[in-house]
Each structure stands twice: as C-alpha cells, then as structure tokens.
C-alpha cells in the first residue's frame, strides 16, 4: 500500500511503524531553514556592523556599557576642576 499523502499540517507522509522511526516533518525542516537564515543574518550583521549589545550605544564602544555620554563627562570634569 502506498504511503498516505502529506496532510495539511505539513507532515512528511512517512507514517512511523513498529520498526521504522518517523521522518522529520516538513514544517520542522522549514523552521530549521529559517533558523539557519536568521543565524547567518546575525553573523553578517556582526561582520558588517561590528559592535552588538550595550557597547554599540556607548561613545567608545565599551562592551560593559559603563561609559557616560559626553555631557555627563563634561559635567564631571567641570565639578572636579571647580574643586581644585
């Protein structure tokens, strides 16, 4: 008897039997392809764009996000200068 055709859930049509494990459903393969594309896009963005994460928002690219913006740095420098 021929295998039943793929159903609307994207099942691959290969029904599992006692001695044959089920095949990977089509929708899982589609998910896998999408996941690979997303990972590749992420890697491409890292290569082209450089910094990713909090560091990209900081003036010096500090990964920990510890660097304050210029206005805060200037205010700090002025207050320190005023003390001396």
């Amino acid at each position, binding site marked *: 008897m021929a295998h039943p055709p793929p*159903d609307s*859930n*994207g*099942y691959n049509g290969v029904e*599992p039997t*006692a001695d044959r*494990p*089920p095949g*990977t*459903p089509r*929708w*899982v393969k589609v*998910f896998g392809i999408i996941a690979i594309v997303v990972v590749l896009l992420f890697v491409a963005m890292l290569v082209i764009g450089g910094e990713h*994460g*909090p560091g*990209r*928002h*900081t003036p010096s690219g500090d990964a*920990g*996000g510890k660097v*304050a*913006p*210029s*206005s*805060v740095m200037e*205010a*700090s420098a002025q207050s320190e200068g005023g003390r001396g």
Partner: protein
Amino acid sequence: MIMTGGLRKVALAAHITLSVGWIGAVAGYIALDVAAATSQDAQTLRAAYLGMELIAWYVIVPLAFASLLTGLIMSLGTKWGLFRHYWVLISLLLTIIATVVLLVETQTINYFADIAADPRTSDDDLRALGNTLVHSVGGTVVLLVIVVLNVYKPRGMTRYGWRKQHVKKPDPEHKE
C-alpha cells in the same frame, strides 16, 4: 509523573496566564521603546528609559522565567513530554533563546536608564541614546510563534518520542 486532571488544569491556566502575560508586558514595553525611538522631548525620553527598565526587571524577566518553569512542568507532567514532539521541543528552545536574549538586553536597558536618570545628561545626548526596538519586536515575533505552535500542536514525533512510545507499548503478538 503524569498530573491528574484537576492539577493539570491549574498548571495549564498558570502557564497560559504567565505566557500571554509575558507577551502583554512586552507590548507595554514596546510602547515605551517607540517613545524612546521617536520622541524629541527630554522628559518623555527620561520617563521612557526609566519605565523600560522597571517593566523589564519587574514584569518581563519574572514572567519569562515563570513561563519557562510552568512550560517545563506542563510538558513533563503530561503525555506530551519534553523531547517527544517537535512542537514542544521547538517551543522550549525558542523560550530559552528568548529568555537569554532578554537577559543580555537588560544590560543595554540598564545603561539607558542609568544615563536617563543622571541629571547631568544633556537633552542632545538623551535624543542620541537609541532604543531596543529590534530586540523587543523580534522577541514578540518569537513569542507569537511559540503561541501558534502551542495552539496548533503540529504533528511530528521525534525519534526519542518514537522509541519511548514503542518501549511503553510492546508488540501484542509477543504477549503470552
């Protein structure tokens, strides 16, 4: 251990509430994120960044962990199992990825909130601070995919699930 009917319903109600609550919390976060991305008003920007930090730490992160935990309980305490069906396995992986990205993103959110809370930060620096829209919108898409998987439960048993099923149900011809 398979949960009884009453306990299973309580766990399911908790899981649905926490998971959908996670999506709702992210929706509220996105509203502030959009304000951070588009507003030119310094007060709005300060309020948005501070609100983003509060929502992230006190609503989104707890809901993410609670959703992950109740999801584990639901899968291990029902016939579905954790590794037996592709839709459960993929939902678990996506939830873990979403939670890890969220935790990494909290560093950026903390940085924004610290700068916004500092009265010495100029209006221009506030406007140049940036936003987390790519992550918050991307995270919402991932969460919606998980919801669709959980509602439709597309067919597909893993090899592990198939082996488990056949260990539990021996061939009746071999019975004496």
